[in-house]
């Protein structure tokens, strides 16, 4: 009985707790796949047999990609890196030419590819079209709200998109084989 007086208070040794936690930590660190997928957002049109409302020829911006990934912009060959600027001038039509869209709200980008078009080429063109619109939105945002498009509220973005709507129409792909 006397011996007990000198005993230390009972304690659970927690020294190995850190080791156990480390073990688990390392397991989870190895297993973790931090997903950050990014992608180009597209909205597909519903399937319908209803006839497409006619679009005046001047409001159509025709872009075709052939099986080799080469580009035809309004029946003229064009390099992909010039596409963005070309779309922007066509949409805004600063010289009020009669063969270009009467207003950006009426313009329709018509995109057609071949069944043999490489996906990378297609996506590159799609990316450039979206980039063209994005740059126009950015300019509009600076002019109207003195802010970057990124910082705008949803309603402000919507008003910009209403003035410069992004309408991309995809025709049935051609098949040259």
């Amino acid at each position, binding site marked *: 009985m006397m011996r007990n007086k000198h005993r230390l208070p009972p304690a659970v040794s927690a020294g190995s707790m*850190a080791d156990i936690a480390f073990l688990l930590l390392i397991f989870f660190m190895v297993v973790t796949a931090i997903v950050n997928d990014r992608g180009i957002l597209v909205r597909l049109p519903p399937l319908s047999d209803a006839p497409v409302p006619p679009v005046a020829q001047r409001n159509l911006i025709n872009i075709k990609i052939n099986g080799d990934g080469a580009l035809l912009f309004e029946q003229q060959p064009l390099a992909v890196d010039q596409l963005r600027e070309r779309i922007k001038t066509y949409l805004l039509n600063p010289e009020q030419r009669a063969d270009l869209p009467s207003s950006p709200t009426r313009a329709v980008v018509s995109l057609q590819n071949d069944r043999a078009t490489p996906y990378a080429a297609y996506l590159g063109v799609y990316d450039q079209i979206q980039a063209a619109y994005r740059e126009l939105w950015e300019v509009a945002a600076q002019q109207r709200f003195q802010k970057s498009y990124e910082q705008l509220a949803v309603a402000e973005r919507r008003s910009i998109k209403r003035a410069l709507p992004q309408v991309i129409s995809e025709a049935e792909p051609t098949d040259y084989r």
Partner: protein
Amino acid sequence: MSKFTIRKPTATVSTASLPDIVFMLLFFFMVVTVFRDQQLLLRVDLPRASQVQKLRHRSLISEIYIGQPREAALGASPAIQINDAFIRLDQVQVAVRQLVTHTPEDQRGRRSTSLKVDQKVEMGIVGDVKTELRKAEQYQLHYVALPAY
């Protein structure tokens, strides 16, 4: 000099809070971890694009892979993978509809599909899959791409 010297306690860094720190990190990783639930059967080399946006709500995204099978015995023509299996083109609609049933009804409108397509794949099969998605009434679509350099 006495025979019994009193031992000075050696200076130690207290490690009592070490488990707490480690646990904190552990919880972080446990929360962040997403277990890969599927094995990629295809070779998918994603293209690059500049207008990429972050995908949100992973639980509301169905993934479709298109690419060349990894196993050479399966041929070189592009195949479609949904979940863990190869899917024929005419099965895509059913498979996609089945994925939709996993989400509660009030959130189905927010569902989207992410297409992970190898950059060398020809557009024919991609267009066919897009048509199938429209048949399955899944209109929101992402072309998954790596951000441009």
